[in-house]
């Protein structure tokens, strides 16, 4: 049986059918090494059990119905041994996996910030300079990229197999994903979380470009206003400035230099101002009111799109960055 399978896979290799995915991100190789380690352990123990079962079945087959095999009650030593060895191996897997997971989940602070909005059934991507893409993502080789993602409807999942990364994209909150592409080329982008009728059509291509090609692409793609400019326009359009930029007597707190800061709430709790808190404060302003202010802000639920909120956030971030503060 196994021989048949191996023959089949050997034939596939000869035919050029891939059995190893492309590898195009900074973490892909490390994750593959861990995968190979796990494969090695799996093959070893599968082969061990298969051959023991097979060997015992043949070696100790019943030769005569009157055979009386001696009972064996067990062996504490063996039980300890075959608990301890798997335990040791799985702990190696745990620490190795957790270490890489920490890397996969911790974006570097200098990453380029892109925004992703998922909806049934497409991916909408905004670049900071204002370029927008649908079901396509252009990124440069060698530069870390951070995606801040949300969904307009159900749960989706942003998956680039060649980068070995995936993150669910949820309605009502932001999730993050980061990577550094290492090889120019085009790679699959899949939605990995079942999201309805055209789930398998919620796909696209990630195009990794050499830095010079990327600059050419950026300047060639229609940009219009940048995200910050669009956010600033929305800020005026929705009259945010009337309360938030009215000096010491304003009805709302100042939005300058707030990102990454802890603020005290009217309830006595504290929160760190991040993208999620800003989003919540636009849509449910009375949920977490800053201490010293009345809960008078109306909700903007239904008035600003998810993409608009991301533009506003990009603008608010610029109010912190412009004054020389590090991004959170």
């Amino acid at each position, binding site marked *: *049986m196994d021989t048949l*399978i191996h023959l*089949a*896979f050997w034939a*596939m290799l000869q035919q050029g059918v*891939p059995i*190893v*995915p492309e590898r195009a991100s900074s973490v892909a190789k490390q994750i593959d090494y861990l*995968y190979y380690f796990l494969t090695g352990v*799996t093959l070893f123990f*599968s082969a061990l*059990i*298969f051959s023991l079962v097979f060997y*015992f*079945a043949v070696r*100790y*087959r*019943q030769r005569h119905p009157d*055979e*009386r*095999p*001696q*009972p*064996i*009650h*067990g*062996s504490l030593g*063996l*039980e300890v041994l*075959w608990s301890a060895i*798997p335990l040791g191996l*799985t702990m190696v*897997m*745990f620490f190795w*996996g*957790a270490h890489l*997971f920490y890397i*996969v989940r911790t974006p570097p602070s200098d990453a380029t910030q892109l925004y992703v909005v998922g909806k*049934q059934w497409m991916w909408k991507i905004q670049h900071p300079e204002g370029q927008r893409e649908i079901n396509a993502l252009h990124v440069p080789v060698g530069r870390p990229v951070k995606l801040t993602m949300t969904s307009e*409807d*159900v*749960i989706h999942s942003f*998956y680039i*197999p060649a980068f*070995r*990364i*995936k*993150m*669910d994209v*949820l*309605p*009502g*909150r932001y999730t993050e994903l980061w990577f550094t592409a290492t090889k120019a080329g085009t790679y*699959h982008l899949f939605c990995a979380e*079942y999201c*309805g*009728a055209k*789930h*398998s*059509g919620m796909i696209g291509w990630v195009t990794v470009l050499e830095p010079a090609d990327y600059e050419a692409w950026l300047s060639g793609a229609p940009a219009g206003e940048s995200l910050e400019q669009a956010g600033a326009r929305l800020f005026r359009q929705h009259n945010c400035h009337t309360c938030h930029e009215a000096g010491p007597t304003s009805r709302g707190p100042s939005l300058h230099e707030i990102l990454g800061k802890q603020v005290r709430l009217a309830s006595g709790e504290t929160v760190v101002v991040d993208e999620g808190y800003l989003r919540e404060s636009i849509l449910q302003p009375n949920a977490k009111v800053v201490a010293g202010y009345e809960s008078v802000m109306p909700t903007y639920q239904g008035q600003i799109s998810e993409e608009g909120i991301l533009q506003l956030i990009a603008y608010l971030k610029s109010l912190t960055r412009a004054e020389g503060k590090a991004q959170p």
Partner: protein
Amino acid sequence: MNAARPAANQMPKVHYLNVDYGIRSWLFTIDHKRIALLYLGSITLFFVLGGLFATAIRLELLTPAGDLFESETYNKMFTMHGVVMIFFFLIPSIPATLGNFLVPMMIGARDLAFPRINLLSWYIYTLGGLFTLFAILSGGVDTGWTFYTPYSSTYSNTNVMATAVGVFILGFSSILTGFNFIITIHKMRAPGLTWFRLPLFIWAHYATSVIMILGTPVVAIAIALVGLERLFHIGIFNPALGGDPVLFQHLFWFYSHPAVYIMILPSMGVISEIVCCFSRKKIFGYSFVAFSSIAIALLGFLVWGHHMFVSSQSMYAGMVFSILSFLVAIPSAVKVFNWTATMYKGSVMYNAPMLYAMGFIGLFTMGGLTGLFLSTLATDVHLHDTYFVVAHFHYIMVGGALMGYLGGIHFWWPKISGRLYPEAWARFSALIIFVGFNLTFFPQFILGYLGMPRRYHAYPPEFQVLNVMSTAGASILAVGYAIPLIYLFWSLRYGPAAGPNPWQAKGLEWQTSSPPPTHNFPETPVVTEEAYEYYPGAEAERV
């Protein structure tokens, strides 16, 4: 090889099958053995139904383009395959049939503690099944068997409510069966049958019952909340209504991960019985096999978050769930080593149940080991929601649970029906199933590593070769499942009488006639020895 078959057995004159005739004698029976057969009939129907959906899925995936069905139809196919196979076949499979039949017989009791509640649980199962059948016939449901919100609670336009009500109702049948088993095992053991003389099948069912009672209410609550949000727009899971979509995943997996152990633990119990019988040897390390069932049941409740490593769950929560998931792998490994060691210096026979058991040991080992890829955080990020996961859980649920179920059906068929099936056909089909299974699901591991997401109606063309292999395997598998269905039916009429103990097995159920009388034993048996004393008095060997 069939040394165990005695010549010219007679069927007993009166037994539980012929004591009464007519439809009423079945629909109002309180005999645990007849109720087991009611379940056997129902779950076989659902297995065939679930198999038809699987066939449709594999046919669609023969080609990369989504050309056989509409996307909506395909999504309903895999949803209903999952719902039917998990809730209506795998979860009740061994406990409700073999468990129902054997738990009282193995402990020397006349029946379960609450025979009427036992019948009630079959009616509840049937009612849940009818709701689900109604959902299927009235257009189907497309949420995936996992019912993830807010898709299920807000966006899906299909028959979510009928399906949810069906699964909700079904849960009560599990809970009642679990209670019945636990109370029966505590209170109704024959004189002399102490806890450490119990067959391991009983330990496995005890552990399973604990999960059924503790876990099922949680999934019932989760499904009820989906219903509330869907019908009355109460914001529980949908963020647009102020809810939290990830909360549903916590509630759902709090049950549905332990539910995997509901499916596999009874199978493990079956394998312990079969391996001992056909190696003619005591189990190696009885107490380790027994307590590993309990360990799996308890640890199984602490690992649900490994389904959610990329769900936005915190990184550190992911680490805790990862390490706990590795811990639950250890008792499973201990079982595999002990079964293998039981064959050492045994007197191994290759009867059909033993072939299934050996298949189980191999396939469950592969299923368990590939689970480590998914407990490991960094590799799970890549493999989550791909065909790797599909392959992994089919190795556990089909290669493991279903192989154990078929092995058990073959092992106890002579006891249930009083007749023998054609051994050659049984061995042949076991082999076919093993080959077909591997060809179906092994390529899916590679598909997953390559990055093919699950639940895809259409897929990129470079994945086609592996999908064709998988579909080819599925067609072999279908033949493998059809053969036993035919010869088991055939044997009911034409099979030679089995006699009380065709395998010369130990265990109280083999001490009474086949089929047994309604009250199982003419007089209550007294137990004076440990389980699996194949040759009492033989001097034990030390390792």
